[in-house]
């Protein structure tokens, strides 16, 4: 999401009364663009956040695949009668849910890899 409000620089009222030579002021100055942003932690935060979400998306896809495997085994059970029919109908429904989770997880991973994810 793009922010349109200008960033207040150090010394402006919104940052309070921190003395200009303090470590806090330096940190604020670095992060607020008065020194190169390379010194700001935001790039590392971005990468960490992205990595964490990507790892989760990957795990989620694996779990969805494992669920799909378990459901494939369930689909082979011979269970007759009304209860068996209901069981197999639910297995089919759950297989769609597993597919949804897997494709959703892949979609999330794709999003995280794209430029769209970075502001």
């Amino acid at each position, binding site marked *: 999401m793009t922010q349109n409000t200008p960033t207040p620089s150090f010394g402006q009222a919104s940052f309070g009364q921190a003395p200009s030579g303090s470590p806090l002021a330096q940190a604020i100055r670095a992060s607020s*663009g008065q020194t190169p942003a390379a010194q700001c932690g935001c790039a590392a*935060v971005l990468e960490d956040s992205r990595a964490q*979400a990507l790892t989760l998306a990957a795990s989620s896809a694996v779990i969805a695949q494992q669920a799909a495997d378990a459901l494939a085994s369930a689909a082979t059970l011979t269970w007759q009668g009304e209860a068996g029919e209901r069981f197999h109908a639910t297995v089919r429904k759950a297989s769609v849910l597993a597919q949804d989770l897997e494709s959703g997880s892949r979609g999330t991973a794709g999003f995280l890899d794209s430029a769209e994810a970075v502001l």
Partner: protein
Amino acid sequence: MSAHVKSRVYGGTGTTTSADLDRFGEVAKALESAALAAERIDGHWQSLPIQLRHRRSAAPFCPKLGGTAASGSVMADGSCVVGGTGGAHVSLDYAAVTSHANARAAEAAKLSSTLQDLSDRIIRAYSLYSNAEHAAARIVGEMLQLGALTEPGYAAGIFAALAGASVLKGSLEEGRFNPIYAVTDSWWAQEGLLAALGTGITNGTGGKAKLHGAVSTNEVNEAAGKISEYLAPLNNAAFGDRLMVTRIRPLHGIGETRTIADSLTNVHDMRLNKVDYGSIAIQRYLRDDGTTAWMVTVPGTDGHFDSPFSWQTNVELMSSDAEQRKAADSARMVDEAMSRAGIGPDDPVAIVGHSQGGIVAATMAADFSDKYNIQHIVTAGSPVANHPIGPNTWVTSIEVNDELVSNLDGAQNPMSPTWLTVRGMSQPLGVERGTAVENTGDGKSITHDMNYMKATWRDAEKLGSTALQGHERHFREVIGGELKETTYWRGRISK
């Protein structure tokens, strides 16, 4: 809003081979494991936005991450140049990531609950863990019994405190005082504590008593026998023991019995249709092979002092002594009615009974086997675990976990091919899992009621359990044929 029950099936036999059961067990485990994994990933997705917020605190003064300011210089890749000095601050689109996380969490949650439901259906339908549950319940019961015999005062105090807390909690949830929670919420301790009480009455609380309690399962029945030695003569002196059985013709009776569900409906209808108290119904069926089969329907305790189904009769029926059981007014009444209806010693007979009616059914099967060919009994909410029923009689027991009455035997029902127990687990108020119980409202009611028994059976039927189907098949075979006649018999006790 109706109450709900969810059933489990224990014992019985079916057509499923052990190889099939192994396969079903493997699939149930795989589904359960996948359900747990999906549940965990749901939790991770739910907590991701919070964790990312925490990560953002690593750069607390970054205007981009703070989301409070940005210059107008937005780079082509989406990064933002702030202050025009060449420093580019970047941020993940946390709002979009949160939206993704919420969507994945919802998908994982839905998948998890469906997988769990599937696993649960297999486990319940094929009674996969019933042996282990049965053993665990026995251990819990014996431990409680040992504890109660060792420190009876403390045990009584703890139980009273638990019951009081249950009433308080349940009443607060309902918004009105409801003492029924003292019974329903203590179900897990009832069999063990009643067994301890039984042991205490018959053998005291010493070391030998504890040992006896640990190896025995019919402590309550032994105690009932001891109490009956005094109670039965008192009862006879007060209300008499002369039994009169009369054939009656009620305005509304019961319908044909084809299935176990029909038998439950009929035992309930005896009350709903206001058939006179102290009465039973006997149906005669002509089978295809020309033989005659019989269905006997026996309602429960009616509370009238001149009825053979009075409260005090229960104690005699529960005795460990066969002669005491046979002398119980209700057992004598059913015997006489069966005899007068013309049931021969070789005619196949099925009996259904609710509460005391079920104990009578078990007594007839256990103690009148030389007189009648009782091939199948259906008991609903009856404490019959210790009645010595022979292998020629199939027993289908329907119970609800928190109804107290079926726990009065202080033991679990035996598990065997010919003894099937369907146990309904009463769901907390507002939880709509399993099958709805008819005629229940917003408050917790007595779960010993026939509406609960019928719902328990209906829920079990939905499972497609081969064990249950085996019992259903046997029941239908016993009374299979054309209904020829239904007769009604009323018993009265007098001096």
